[in-house]
């Protein structure tokens, strides 16, 4: 096992933002040999040429430019790797397909899973790097048994461990999260202290490849308008209205239904086969269990039911649950109290206090079964 403190060669995934820039500066200050890499996941030229304006996404050309300038400022080598084809296939195609299957995808987890900690980590290894470092707010601990544990970032508001539940032991062993023990405020202060040119830069937007956070426009431009339009119904099948595409709706959504009803209606589920959006009252939104698929255990996988906590979406407090491992990398999660808006396609991440035990992808809620 490598000593994580000696002078190492570290590849830093640089996005041009404050967090990854500070990550690079910190590691350099600690005496490591730092190499910056930006991933080009999108053919920006295509978009800039198409509408003659800047394509305002998180990893846009401007951000690669910023990353390059930070690398120059630090005096570290900097390279751009081309993952356009892989990102399209593994992240964007999955994103659109999930919506058209009536699910609500989480492309950031997929990007971590298939791009950053798979392809970029491979690039880092090809550069003979000992570690890949990112600006994620999460921590990696190495326990006495030799096992790596994934812990939340200490900044509650910034903790990004939810997006990292797919990491395997060998990935954690080769990864550094230097910002995990800091608050965003501290990181900004460090950025200013290092004199980084991006110290004042704002936060990146939600989904890097979706312009203006308008995912519906993105889907329609990719796949055509008004696909899967159909009826809005209640659980008993009563027709309440019409909709212009099931992909416009996500479980728990209240706005944009356009249905007049005595009490507020929420989306309970989407049935793409029948092209139906199923709605109901707030009380109907609660579920007491879910099935998770593609479960990854970072902690040792349990043989039987365990008491734990979980999050079924990023911006949520973790809630108490019981997790029952099932065959085929699946698990059943039972909530002690009913959970609102269990959304197929989102990630369910298992926690015990600060530690990420693992997680999986929400398969169905009671409305789809």
């Amino acid at each position, binding site marked *: 096992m490598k000593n994580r403190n000696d002078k190492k060669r570290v590849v830093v995934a640089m996005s041009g933002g404050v967090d990854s820039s500070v990550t690079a500066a910190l590691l350099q200050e600690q005496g490591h040999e730092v190499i910056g890499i*930006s991933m*080009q996941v999108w053919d920006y*030229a295509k978009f800039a040429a198409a509408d003659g304006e800047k394509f305002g996404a998180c990893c846009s050309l401007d951000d690669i430019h910023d990353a390059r300038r930070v690398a120059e400022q630090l005096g570290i*080598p900097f390279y*751009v790797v081309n993952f356009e084809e892989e990102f399209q296939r593994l992240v964007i195609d999955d994103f659109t397909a999930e919506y058209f299957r009536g699910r609500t995808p989480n492309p950031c987890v997929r990007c971590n899973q298939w791009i950053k900690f798979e392809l970029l980590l491979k690039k880092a290894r*090809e550069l*003979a790097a000992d570690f890949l470092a990112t600006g994620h707010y999460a921590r990696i601990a190495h326990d006495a048994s030799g096992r790596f544990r994934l812990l939340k970032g200490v900044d509650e508001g910034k903790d990004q461990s939810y997006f990292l539940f797919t990491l395997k032991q060998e990935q954690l062993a080769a990864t550094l999260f230097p910002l995990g023990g800091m608050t965003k405020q501290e990181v900004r202060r460090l950025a200013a202290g290092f004199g980084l040119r991006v110290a004042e830069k704002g936060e990146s937007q939600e989904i890097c490849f979706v312009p203006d956070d308008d995912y519906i426009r993105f889907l329609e431009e990719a796949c055509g308008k008004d696909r899967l339009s159909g009826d809005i119904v209640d659980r008993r099948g009563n027709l309440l209205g019409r909709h212009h595409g099931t992909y416009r709706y996500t479980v728990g959504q209240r706005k944009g239904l356009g249905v007049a009803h005595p009490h507020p209606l929420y989306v309970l589920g989407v049935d793409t086969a029948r092209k139906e959006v199923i709605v109901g009252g707030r009380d109907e939104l609660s579920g007491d269990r879910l099935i998770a698929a593609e479960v990854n255990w970072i902690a040792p996988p349990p043989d039987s039911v365990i008491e734990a906590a979980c999050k079924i979406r990023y911006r949520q407090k973790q809630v108490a649950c019981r997790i029952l491992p099932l065959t085929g990398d699946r698990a059943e999660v039972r909530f002690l109290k009913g959970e609102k808006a269990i959304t197929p396609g989102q990630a369910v991440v298992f926690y015990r206090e600060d530690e990420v035990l693992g997680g999986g992808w929400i398969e169905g809620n009671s409305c789809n079964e």
Partner: protein
Amino acid sequence: MIYMDYNATTPVHPEVLEAFLPFYRDSFGNPSSIHLAGRRVKAAVEEARERLAGFLGCEPVEVIFTSGGTEADNLAIKGVAAAQGGKGNHIITTRVEHPAVLNTCLYLEQKGYDVTRLEVDREGLPDLARLEASITGRTILISAMFANNETGTIFPVREIGEIASRHRICFHCDAVQAAGKIPIDCREMNASLLALSGHKLGAPQGIGALVVRRGVKLHPLIHGGAQERNRRGGTENVAGIVALAKAYELAQGSLAAESRRIGGLRDRLEQGIMARVPDVLINGDGKRRLPNTVNISFAGVDADSLLANLDLAGIAVSSGAACSSGVLRSSHVLSAMGVEPSLAKGSIRFSLGRENDEADLEGLLSRLPGIVERLRAS
């Protein structure tokens, strides 16, 4: 650093630096001014034009100085197209041209011109019979490169010029990579237009030239003052013009000796790699090739990883074409030549020049095989 990327750019030759620096110091002036300062630099510009014309086999009035090779290519293609009025709208080029030519043709195509892009064979050469067969009554221009920047393959430019002249069509030759490396004679090759770039042959970046033979109708790209006989507005880059002529003179003077020396280095580099690294493939025409260039595919390796590793080991080489972000794109040249995508993505261009020597060769050969082996194992 071991620099083996001369087809990207070259260090400025010390004698060139000596020749042009005075124009940044005492000998300043605007060539259009009528006072002494102006006259002095005007004379320097015209002398440079005469000398360059002498080397290229054309008349001084046929030389237009530009900001570089890309502007020269743009001026040639757009300038000829615009001057044709309604008489023709068809341009013939090849699939392996530099983006300066390909994207200019693409732009004209979007504006309604017809563009024929000739396929090339495995060596990167177009079929001349097919070239001739694609000429129509509306063909206004054949644009073909002298030598390919990625593989070094040399086109049969004299034969292309013959075909063009037989059909009374303009032949524009992008000679950016050939200039200073192999002999160029506009008259002999029947080129109507010929583009070159200073920084590929020991002059600084930001200077180039387009030869436009008498009788070729050309509209300017940059409108402005009456400079360059109304064919290129804007105050002349005096120091650059002086540098370009000086660099060409130096390159011309040592052409035979340097191409033997550099060609020898290149051949030993090629043999050295073939002997030490299994599963490599040389791309391009082994015989008709620039003496300084070799393009090699390393099976099972990503060029960007190989480039980065060589960079970290202090060796500067390149691969394919980089886009604005600096990311590598698959090479349109190798793809047109029918190189398998899996091999094309592991292709590296080594391009040697004046300052390379045996020690550079040894430095490269001592580091490259280990890197390739490690990448293949990972």
